[in-house]
């Protein structure tokens, strides 16, 4: 039987990403376990059971252990972990929120992560979305679910300087978004000398 190798959807783009300048650096993040949490009103015991205060302010994220808890809606969060397997994370979060009337579903295979670093990253992102990305507004701890180009993404602000952003994109849209980002970064990419 043929062995099925786990390949990353953006493997074919790694060479193109390496040619980018330091002002727009795109790196592909390793797979992380992610769980979609639905919970109506957040009771006080949720934070002790989960080990994290789920953010209730719209468009924010907080560190949660080794991962993050991202606000996706008034009763929906994305909880990730870099150390647990998807099954472990799902079981742990489900055990915490089920008695409170919530639910948890493993969505690790849904999105992959990209890291955009550099002084020009804001200019690149601004070509595809109308969100105010100035660090005064979109500093560390802010997030946004929006459309970047034609792809739905979750944007995460990872620094207060506005030069470090996380992008979570659906795996099937990753190729499109990679092409779009490379095109948007073209003006900051030095042309090779012949």
């Amino acid at each position: 039987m043929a062995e099925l190798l786990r390949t990353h959807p953006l493997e074919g783009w790694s060479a193109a990403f390496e040619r980018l300048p330091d002002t727009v650096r795109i790196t592909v993040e390793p797979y992380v376990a992610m769980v979609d949490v639905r919970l109506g009103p957040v009771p006080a015991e949720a934070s002790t059971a989960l080990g994290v205060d789920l953010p209730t302010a719209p468009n924010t994220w907080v560190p949660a252990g080794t991962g993050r808890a991202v606000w996706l809606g008034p009763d929906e969060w994305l909880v990730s972990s870099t150390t647990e397997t998807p099954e472990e994370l799902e079981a742990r979060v489900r055990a915490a929120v089920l008695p409170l009337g919530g639910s948890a579903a493993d969505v690790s295979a849904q999105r992959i992560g990209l890291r955009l670093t550099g002084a020009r990253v804001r200019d690149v992102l601004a070509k595809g979305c109308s969100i105010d990305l100035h660090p005064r507004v979109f500093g560390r701890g802010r997030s946004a679910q929006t459309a970047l180009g034609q792809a739905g993404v979750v944007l995460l602000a990872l620094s207060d300087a506005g030069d470090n952003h996380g992008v979570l994109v659906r795996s099937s849209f990753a190729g499109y978004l990679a092409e779009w980002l490379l095109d948007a970064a073209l003006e900051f990419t030095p042309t090779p000398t012949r």
Partner: protein
Amino acid sequence: MQLIACPWCGPREEVEFSYGGQAHVPYPDDPGALSDEEWAHYVFFRANPKGRFAERWNHSAGCRRWFNAIRDTATYRFERVYRLDDPKPVIP
């Protein structure tokens, strides 16, 4: 592109939203007593004013929540945006 202020997420591009028709259409109090004609009016008949119109919108590319908006159908300007459980605002 026009920005629509989602009551949860804030101003976002218009393409992130989808339209849900007229707002504040009450479900019949006694559905069993309705005639076919009354059902048809409840299901299919909607107002089509020129001017301010209360509508349902969904932020489908963001928080995926429904909300209501009062939009001027002549100018496409969004006069008010409010959550589903808020009463219909009165605009002078």
